[in-house]
């Protein structure tokens, strides 16, 4: 046990076990679902929907500088479809916008 205010080995072990159980549980759940029909269509759409939701949360936590930089990143992503290029453009845009806004 760590002193108060520290992270104990027990907390690390519990979080590790719970996280692994969630990851394995997801696999066991997914493996038991039908391979076509509504379930399959829903799972096929899940990656895009989750990333769209994640971006919504991240942008709602930001302000005008983040929104402007995200728009710049979206433009570069549309034009290039390149991950590294979009990251560089987004970081450059956020630096510039935080200076002026």
């Amino acid at each position, binding site marked *: 046990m760590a002193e108060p205010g520290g992270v104990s080995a027990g907390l690390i072990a519990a979080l590790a076990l*719970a996280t692994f159980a969630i990851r394995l549980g997801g696999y066991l759940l997914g493996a038991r679902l039908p391979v076509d029909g509504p379930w399959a269509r829903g799972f096929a759409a899940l990656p895009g929907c989750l990333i769209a939701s994640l*971006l919504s949360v991240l*942008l709602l936590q930001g302000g005008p500088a983040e929104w402007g930089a995200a728009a710049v990143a979206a433009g570069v992503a549309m034009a290039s479809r390149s*991950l590294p290029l979009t*990251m560089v453009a987004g970081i450059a845009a956020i630096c510039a916008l935080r200076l002026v806004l």
Partner: protein
Amino acid sequence: MEPLLSEVSRPGATASGAEFRAGLREVMPLALGVAIYGLAFGLLAAQARMDGLATGIMGAVVFAGSSQIVAVERVVTGAGAAAALAAGIALNLRLLLITASLREELSGRPWWQILLGVHLATDENWALMHATRARGRAVGYWYLVGGGVGIFAAWVAATATGAMLAGAIPEPRAFGLDFAFVAAFVAILRNLWRGSGDALPWGAAVGATAALVLVTPIEPSWALACGGVAGAVIAGLRRGRDDG
């Protein structure tokens, strides 16, 4: 990443070793982002009186960045271990949806590969695999694992380093690096777009997430999972569309 497209036509490019290496190579920009994020987590861990070894071990065994950050931040702000654990677990429920969607990649594999695959599944390498596939390359399990190894190495090394060097590292925000993942997910979302059939589910996911974040006191990580599921349910219930 343009030169890598030529691998599609190269014989043997589908072999597991080549796929592993492609995943490892192409995850590098994301691994760099993870490393920056990891340094920032290391600073936080140092505030919770964790040394480099404990931080590195936590990164390796939990291997879920946002939940580690939330759990340690709870401890630093004086919450109890149970509250810290609950917050970390809530943030990880999204991983349930991620590994549930890996059934094709994992089906028929030996148990050690399933256990390895689910532990190495993160937002970054999972989304990268789907985005690469949406661009027309047949990548699967070993691409995911290659990317996962890259993210794992970056996360463990950076978080341990951050905890050891706490105080000597500048704030990532000062260089706009806190925005690296927002930009990365914008690029990944662009590559996941399959056509106008995605508009309705994605719109529903964004709308539900925004409504939950703005109108209810729900934790953003719960709003995210609910919004993603709402979009997937709409995609599943819609009939007569040949885009799923």
